């Protein structure tokens, strides 16, 4: 198996606050890793660092063996290979769903409009969204918007897909449709790093679960073990709180 992603000794500070203090994480292709941990534990920051949206202070990120955090690397090229989906969807409100999806393929991958449209329609139909192709995002439900955002990232055919609490901004009834889509994606072998609070989903989908605490990965392992017999006291406390909140 080839290695899709390797993060080593990643550090990131905002002012005086050290958000990530030495994160190590490696993913093989087709692996799905779920990042769990309390709000503020650094899940989002880690994903944004992998996508190079945040400059890092120390450490390195490798995508398929290439060190993308080295100086002189074309960040736009790296980002076009690493998809990220945000909690708040961040769709472009002035563009139709179709244009949201085809913008990067036409402008970054230099696909012809016809080819990009065809690809977009293919992806949209696959996820039951093709009848929305001509709509503007604000006419869609939150779940539909988030699915479009995922399709937008997939249209770039990324090596790795990063998902940053993609269901946290959704009504509970809309969460399922997004999670179902992610399950399907996992089934197709998409390499994904998923920051999530949906523990049930993590248990179903993840090949590995990483618990972030205090800016580092405190514990990781297969979901069955992580959820049933966590080794670290902090992991246990976190999971107890999650259970108490009815999220598992």
């Amino acid at each position, binding site marked *: 198996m080839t290695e899709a992603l390797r993060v080593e000794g990643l550090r990131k500070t905002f002012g005086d606050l050290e958000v990530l203090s030495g994160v190590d994480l490696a993913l093989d292709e087709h692996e799905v890793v779920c990042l769990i941990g309390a709000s503020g534990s650094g899940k989002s920051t880690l994903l944004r660092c992998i996508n190079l949206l945040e400059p890092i202070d120390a450490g390195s990120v490798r995508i398929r063996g290439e060190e993308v955090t080295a100086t002189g690397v074309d960040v736009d090229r790296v980002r076009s290979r690493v998809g990220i989906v945000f909690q708040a969807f961040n769709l472009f409100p002035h563009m139709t769903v179709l244009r949201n999806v085809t913008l990067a393929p036409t402008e970054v991958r230099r696909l012809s409009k016809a080819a990009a449209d065809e690809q977009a329609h293919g992806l949209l139909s696959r996820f039951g969204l093709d009848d929305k192709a001509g709509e503007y995002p604000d006419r869609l439900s939150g779940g539909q918007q988030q699915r479009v955002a995922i399709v937008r*990232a997939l249209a770039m055919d990324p090596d790795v897909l990063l998902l940053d609490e993609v269901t946290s901004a959704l009504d509970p009834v809309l969460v399922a449709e997004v999670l179902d889509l992610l399950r399907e994606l996992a089934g197709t072998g998409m390499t994904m790093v998923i920051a999530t609070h949906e523990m049930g989903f993590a248990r179903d989908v993840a090949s590995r679960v990483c618990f972030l605490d205090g800016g580092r990965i405190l514990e990781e392992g297969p979901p069955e073990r992580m959820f049933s017999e966590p080794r670290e006291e902090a992991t246990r406390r976190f999971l107890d709180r999650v259970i108490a909140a009815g999220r598992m």
Partner: protein
Amino acid sequence: MTTGGSPQPRDSAPEGLDVRAPLPPTGSRGSRILGGGSGARSVWVAVASTLVFFGVAAILIVTSPGWLRVKATFFDAAVFKKSFPLILEKFRINVFIFMVAEVIVLAWAMLLAVLRSLPGPVFAPLRLLATAYTALFRALPTILVISLLGFGMPALGLQGLPKSEIFWAIVALVLVYSAYVAEVYRAGIESVHPSQTAAARSLGLDRRKTLRFVVLPQAVRRVIPPLLNDFIGLQKDSALVGVIGVVDSLSTADIRSAAAFDYTPYLALALIYVVITIPMTVWVDWLIKRERGRTQAGGRL
């Protein structure tokens, strides 16, 4: 976003831009001028009270002791008939000046605004230059800039420098108004939430393409109403070009008025300005209302 409790806050309105004007009275049916009530009765009350009010006002005005003098000085039909076509003819010069100026301002101000929002230390001199430009030309009275260029530049007698007053009038108006419009654009650019930029950059779009496809289209859409407001100002300020000797509509009104010992020509010109400007202000109001409707119905555009 219709559902899901959007966690993206809109930025607070940047300085100098009133994209989100005060809220209209919600649920008002019918005309606000009629008092926002509904039903035939309130319409009748509004019509009757209006008729009585303006009827009484009209009677008071025309029976007042000075009325005949006012009428002779401002509302002389013969003078109006004679001067109006001449003034209208010269108004074409004003139209030419402000139309040309507006087209240049649109592009030039955009460039200034983009320069001002360039990030990074490398662009510091450009940012500084653009900032100084907007500060300077917003500080100067328009009429001063017109005089400075309109008298000063031709006086230089430099080869290749145009001597046309109309040319320098346009340059002066462009300098002043591009400073205002650049600020309007910049406010629009800053009102586009950073998460939009993040989304575009995360897809691999470079800075220029992000600006072109994602930020500017949203920014411009939001600032169209304040932009048009500045253009209304520009159109009215085109009447200042007479100071450097352009024989425009106002100078013509000056001349006709002096010749007839009567101020009716000014009124004729006022009428022309009102006729072209008021529809534009109504249009701007309509655009603001529509924009507001859109942002309220569907989150953030």
